[in-house]
């Protein structure tokens, strides 16, 4: 998929991201619209969110502030609020909107069968 004349930005990360086999988390329907659900993936806790417009996002599931469960948070199109102290985190980047440390944001997609696929090593950032 990468053209030969495209310089790989990072020789170590590039091939890994391309060849990584995604984790299949099961059907999208297990996540209600506008909510999040938590998954244990390869020993890591990941919260997957399904916003009302249909997009799906994945972030590390534990709030860096006091360990709150982000999958239980309320969300809009942009951010999720930790239920414990209402710290906010951007769904697309994991960056905090209230000055906390950032979360890891994971690449996530829905395949043709309607399953949620998570790329554990293809972190968007983190």
């Amino acid at each position, binding site marked *: 998929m990468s053209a030969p004349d495209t310089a790989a930005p990072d020789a170590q990360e590039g091939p890994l991201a391309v060849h990584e086999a995604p984790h299949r988390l099961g059907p999208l329907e297990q996540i*209600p619209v506008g909510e999040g*659900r938590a998954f244990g993936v390869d*020993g890591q806790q990941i919260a997957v969110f399904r916003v009302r417009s249909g997009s799906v996002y994945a972030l590390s599931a534990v709030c860096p502030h006091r360990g709150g469960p982000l999958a*239980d948070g*309320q969300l809009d*199109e942009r951010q999720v609020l930790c239920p414990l102290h209402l710290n906010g985190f951007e769904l697309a980047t994991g960056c905090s909107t*209230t000055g906390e440390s950032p979360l890891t944001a994971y690449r996530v997609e829905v395949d043709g069968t309607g399953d949620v696929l998570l790329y554990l090593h293809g972190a968007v950032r983190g």
Partner: protein
Amino acid sequence: MTALQDRPLTATEDGPVRSRLVVIGNGMAGARTVEEILARGGAEQFSVTMFGDEPYGNYNRIMLSHVLSGEETDEDIYLNTLDWYADNDISLHAGHRVVRVDRFAKIVTAVHTATGDVAEAGYDKLIIATGSSSFMPRMDGLTRPDGSLTDGVFAFRTIDDTRGMIAYAEHDHHHRAVVIGGGLLGLEAARGLQRFGLSVDVVHAGAHLMNAQLGAAGADILRAGVERLGIGVHLSARTTGILGDGRVTGVALQDREALPCDMVVIAAGIRPNVELAVTSGFTVERAIVVDDFMRTVDDPDVYAVGECVQHRGQVYGLVAPLWEQAGVLADQITGADVTAAYHGSRTATKLKVAGMEVAAMGLQEPERDTDEQVLFAEPKRGVYKSLIIRDDKLVGATVLGDTSKVAFLMQAFDQGLPLPQERLSMLFELGAPSAEVGAAELDPQAQVCNCNGVSKAQLCSAVESGCTSVQGVMDRTRAGKGCGSCKLMVKQIVEWAAGDRVQEDPSVHWYVPGIPMDKPALMRAIREQGLRSVSAVFAALAPDGQEDARSKMGLGSLLKMMWNDEYVDERDARFINDRVHANIQRDGTFSVVPQMKGGVTSPAQLRRIADVAEKWQVPMVKLTGGQRIDLLGVRKEDLPAVWADLEMPSGYAYGKSFRTVKTCVGQEFCRFGVGDSTNLGIALESRFQGLESPAKIKMAVSGCPRNCAESYVKDVGIVAIDGGRWEIYVGGAAGAHIRKGDLLATVDDPETAERLTGRFMQYYREHAKWLERTYAFVPRVGLDHLKAVIVEDSLGIGADLDTRMQSSIDAYRDPWHEAHRPATPGQFRTGLPLQVLPQVPIR
């Protein structure tokens, strides 16, 4: 004669034709007006020429007393350096005094104050901002034959005056100073001169200090404070002359002994500089007369602004009105807002006079028989507070020493806010100890928000980094976002730290942050457009239809209250507690509190709770403050099974809703009881169970005035009194905030108590702001109003309130039934899948 650029009306190389704007005066008013004009894109419209008779850029005259006191250097107080004028393409003629305006040829003529060179400039629009100068009372020996001040005599108006005073005061042979004038400026001069080791006396012609701002009683306390600082005060003392031959040796007073001194500072008030306007044919009364658009009444092309102006008979000597005038003038002259008009200012001042905090606004004393005065004086500590109230509006206030409530008072005065019934709370912060310390005195390291650990210094640094609204600082630091009891203190600190820059965030009036409407407008729109779900409200009313996570819970509560059975309940709008009907704990487990009406239970119920606690290994079983039993540390996935085993309804210990009714045993068992408190408590809890409201509602019923159920400090508290009657108290609190409830009514039977309780709750549900507890709501709307509406039914809405309350009651369903049929997929799935829960120790 130097001909300065008399700019013709020509197109510049890269822009449209610009007209010529000339500004006479480069003080705070002139420069601020030009800044406002530039901010409205005025550089496109005008080529600007300014004349100022001081040979400097523009400085903050108010800060001169800080230069004298050594708190600031004269470098610190420049608002605009000469570079600013160059950068903004303004031709500044510093050191030029304008001597004539030819209104017919539209030319101003200026003379250089040092060289005598003459300069001219033509104008299309002219702004006169000549300000004012020190008033020099007539007295012997004040001036030398050439008209300049005698050596050792100073005015206190300009940066050169200040520099001269400092140089003279630092002289080794000068030991005593006399300040003529006991107003604000005189007292600041006196305090500043003490820094140089001088002994200072203030000679004041008036009967009390600061008579422009203070009444006699407040001024007496100020005087005592000033004298404690070692400054001599001489009242009702008229200075007749300056003694000395070429050099000051003292001042002569009428009917008193002369005061020996080495220097004299005259701070006897200011007079508008109007000579230029008079000689140029403008209408001048006490100052240059302008209309509401800041235009002179004589010439539509000539405006005037600042201390040289008289508007609707008023001449202002404070900076705040000047800022307002500058904004209106700029709107008008640029056409940015041709509807802008200046309607005069209500002047409120807050200052530090000789180290003492003083705030003064409006009337000093009551004027009419019906005016209400609230007065507190503690002379020994230098504290004085006097409020003048007319028709339930604050029309005057004087506060000395303790200024903790000044931010509120200034707002109430300025905006005519409704006042709390309990006037005492306008003088002091009741029940919130941390706010008793004024924002200014508070130690920078002091923790202001005890929930989120935010210090005063952190708040100030947020302000410094550009957050100038209270809401902005709260968002940045998370101060005030815990229990909320520190919000007032946070507000005061932000206002103190931001000073003039403080902005009111319009969102403080919105019901939720994501919809720009207050509650009445929001409810109207929801009803008119038939919006029955949270997503429908966002789509119809939010900017760009954007949903906002922080607004969902408040909207859900409001819609449920308004639509009851017709509400379209979208689960994502709910907070986690309301999704799973339990209260989330720090480790992600939940607490389960079954309903136990009135705190009355039975052996069978206790046995069942004990069985459930054992079966599900509940780590902690605890009695709550609301007389119930709390099962703590229940895993989310176990919730449905726990409820099923309990077979009890939800106690709603998690929602922004009606919670519980605490009762005492009442007359059934208690030998003092005069009413059946347990039965009324159970009836209330059965009736109002689970009703959503803007914030939680806790109630209590006590069987006698010994008040064992703590009814005085509940949102609604009922007390049985002898004779079979019941008192209903509303707006009490004993949590983060402490307040004794107000007596709403005394009624004859429990049925009436129940009906009025429901009516009060419905009124609160419909009119309170989101998360506004009754302890804030009741004083905000006023007890008299509540009595009228709820008890006397003065608006005739009592029956409607009762009907709407009944609809909500009829729509109630016990949420724990969802145990058998989850509302969403994975409703009770753990939020922390790999964590071993609970993490709190099992006892």
